[in-house]
């Protein structure tokens, strides 16, 4: 049984410490050769990592085999400061209702710490997107929609630290 939050929560914050350089984390977020190895496993595509650059995220072959469309997410770069900060718009396209909630705003902040550990903070502003918020908080994991950002960041950490993908 999943529970919906009792009021409209508009911002979600996720933080994880990863034993990797900020550059490695930046690459893992922005390059398809990395993005296909963690999280939902699809390729990302940033046409240009500068303001105005288009962003697309594709479904994985496995998801397409289950009837998913090619394109999962679209958006546009708002602000970019490699490898420290990336702000972009983000719209989920895999479901009509989710797509109709429109563009949300996603921020990645990458801060180098001591001892080779880097702090990655993801802030997702989800104003007007309650269903997407529910999905991204892992609220639909029981029905096969995956564990949202927690799951994505956990598998990202695992990939960068062990070199092994949690995906099969």
């Amino acid at each position, binding site marked *: 049984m999943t529970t919906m*939050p009792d009021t409209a929560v508009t911002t979600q*914050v996720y933080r994880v*410490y990863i034993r990797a350089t900020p550059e490695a984390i930046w690459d893992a977020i922005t390059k398809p050769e990395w993005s296909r190895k963690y999280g939902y496993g699809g390729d990302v595509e940033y046409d240009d990592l500068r303001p105005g650059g288009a962003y697309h995220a594709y479904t994985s072959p496995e998801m397409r085999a289950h009837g998913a469309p090619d394109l999962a997410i679209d958006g546009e770069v708002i602000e970019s400061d490699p490898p420290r900060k990336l702000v972009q718009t983000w719209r989920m396209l895999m479901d009509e209702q989710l797509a109709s909630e429109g563009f949300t705003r996603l921020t990645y902040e990458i801060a180098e710490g001591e*001892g080779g*550990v880097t702090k990655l*903070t993801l*802030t997702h502003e989800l104003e007007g997107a309650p269903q997407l918020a529910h999905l991204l908080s*892992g609220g639909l994991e029981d029905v096969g929609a995956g564990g949202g950002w927690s799951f994505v960041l956990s598998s990202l950490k*695992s990939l960068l630290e062990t070199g092994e993908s949690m995906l099969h």
Partner: protein
Amino acid sequence: MTCDLSVTYFNRVTDDDDRVFKALADPTRRFLLDRLFARDGRTLTELESELEMTRFGVMKHLRVLEEAGLVVARRSGREKLHFLNPVPIRLIHDRWIDKYTERRVSALADLKSELEGTA
């Protein structure tokens, strides 16, 4: 023991898990997390109003949660908002719980794909 900022990664990991388990081993702190789960991004004043505890007491508990990474505080204008960060719990889930439930889950997944395949 004082907090050493230059801890090695292994200390960091062990300490992280310890901190998460310790933070969760208290009913007030679990209550605070539940309140943030119900509605995220709250101020200290809001959280305090739901507990019969001094402001200082609530602050102390929030600090333990922040140190464990379970709560992330962010400034929004003049306010400091507290957000539930579920990632440390997910990491424990992926590291410990998955290990013991993997077989059962994969059996269920096989069943699911078998049923869906014939649907």
